[in-house]
């Protein structure tokens, strides 16, 4: 059963535009929304300075403020404070944000007892956790090396292929864009797409693999040397490989995608690895919970 709270809704009308960037905002700790917003641009000229006029985004319309609480005295105090307001927002001294209160209503608000647990934000680890099964290690190795080999879709993103002894892994990596029944490749594809959706935000097509950071620093990468180093590290263990990727300055200067010019290859690889590690962690936690409940 959920807890029952009383909700007070107070309505008003904005007579002059109110400067806000968003339609939803907080007013005296209450949730406020502007209904049927009409956008206006309030231009402000500073006559004393030789500068261009500054324009503020402001809104006109009806305003609705919602307060919910189980105690009626809290609602009473909030109602009093709201009704004492004549102006809201910035530049009240110039007459902006004038409000006229119209009325309101109350209703019962039922919240579910199930508390929403906030998921942890993705954190890029410095190193991989110590306890990893062989399957996990394989998947992580696959994920960290998948962009360094030629595929039908694209060339190696560092132009050179590291000469890795495990040929089965290389063959699997070359198929990472194809439709397969292999569970490991399927699992990887899910994480690859998830990481791409996280990192690829601003679309900016580019010509070369070097990104804006490389152009700024005017640094050139020795790709053959880089491929050799990756090969050497990959043959030791997964922890070393991850650490190498984490500390690599060269991978920061390389783009992951040609259509998204602000996503680095290092970031993409680390995001995939961390998503995999986080999911393993969550699964193990859930299993532990079930064991305790039994």
């Amino acid at each position, binding site marked *: 059963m959920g807890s029952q709270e*009383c*909700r*007070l809704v107070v309505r008003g009308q904005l*007579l*002059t*535009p109110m400067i806000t960037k968003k339609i939803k905002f907080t007013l005296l700790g209450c949730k406020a929304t502007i209904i049927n917003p*009409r956008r*206006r*641009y*309030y*231009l402000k000229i*500073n*006559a*004393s*300075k*030789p500068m261009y*006029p500054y*324009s503020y985004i402001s809104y*006109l319309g009806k305003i609705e403020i919602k307060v919910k609480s189980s105690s*009626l*005295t809290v*609602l*009473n105090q909030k*109602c*009093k404070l709201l*009704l*004492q307001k*004549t*102006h809201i927002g910035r530049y*009240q*001294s*110039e*007459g902006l944000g*004038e409000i*006229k*209160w*119209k*009325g*309101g*209503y*109350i*209703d*019962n*608000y*039922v*919240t*579910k007892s*199930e*508390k*929403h647990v906030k998921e942890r934000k993705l954190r890029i680890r410095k190193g991989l956790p110590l306890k990893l099964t062989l399957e996990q290690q394989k998947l992580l190795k696959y994920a960290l090396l998948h962009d360094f080999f030629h595929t039908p879709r694209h060339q190696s993103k560092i132009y050179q292929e590291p000469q890795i002894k495990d040929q089965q892994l290389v063959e699997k990596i070359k198929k990472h864009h194809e439709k397969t029944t292999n569970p490991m490749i399927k699992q990887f594809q899910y994480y690859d797409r998830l990481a791409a959706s996280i990192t690829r935000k601003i679309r900016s097509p580019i010509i070369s693999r070097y990104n804006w950071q490389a152009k700024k620093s005017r640094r050139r990468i020795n790709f053959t040397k880089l491929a050799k180093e990756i090969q050497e590290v990959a043959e030791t263990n997964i922890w070393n490989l991850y650490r190498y990727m984490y500390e690599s300055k060269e991978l920061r200067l390389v783009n992951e995608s040609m259509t998204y010019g602000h996503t680095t290859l290092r970031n993409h690889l680390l995001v995939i690895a961390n998503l995999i590690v986080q999911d393993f962690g969550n699964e193990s936690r859930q299993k532990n919970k079930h064991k305790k409940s039994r």
Partner: protein
Amino acid sequence: MAKSTSKRSSGKTESPLKTIIPDQTISIPRKILKVKAFTPICKPLNGSLPSSKISHLLKLWTFEYQYKNGKETKTSTATAYMIKGLRGALRHQVMTHCKERGLEVCHTSDKETDQKGNSLLPEGFHLLGSCTDSDECIVHAVFGSKGNSSKIRVSAKPIANISHKTFQAPVSIQNVQIATEKRVALTFEGKAIQDFGERYLAGEFEFEIDITKCTPEEMGMIIEATMYMHKLGGGYNAGYAELQIKGLDLVKSTTNRQPKITDQNSFTIEEEIDEEKLPEEFTNALTAWKKHLREYKEVK
């Protein structure tokens, strides 16, 4: 996010609305200086819209109004605009007013020179916000600066251009003449190549200065400065932006807000404004301002 369900409570149980809504009326007392002004032509503009040659006033909304045509009542629409730049005009007037009376007050800018090294600070002023809290100038105390909020609030009721004299609008508005002036920037063989338009307002209007938080000498300064206000908007050098002050009134206005229960769960808010003239305080403020000026000169 937690999902929620909302339901209107049934009418059988006793409504908690009576305890939530305040019993007494909420009254907000304010001291307001009402200024009646007239302008033959004035352009307090808000810039031009994209794909438009005309610089507009700040548009608020369009509304319907009723008017009488003989025995019939008809409806029509009009647009309401906002008068911008009143506070800025008042501030500039107060600054020049103080300078003429020998007071050194804050300038509008906190910059001393521009990029080329030209001085931005005229004589008789100091940089904005440079006066300390102990020796704060009167203009900084009233108008504030970045981080220090202003004590006053200058606003005017929205204006509209309605040709019908017997109009009844849902919101209180001021009826003035609003039109567009077409101007030509460049001609070739008698024809206009580059032209642009500017909206202007003309007629009598009223604006209010909220001086509740001000001390008597600050009130006196504002009252005296508003008497000499003569500029509003742009184009002063070309003959526009003329402002004539017709009258001043210091008023104690209290807005009373009374929430009234209409339904078991809903309520409306009724608003009333009571006004009372304060002629004594008006004269007292002016004498306090003169006293302040005398003391300042003695100290100097």
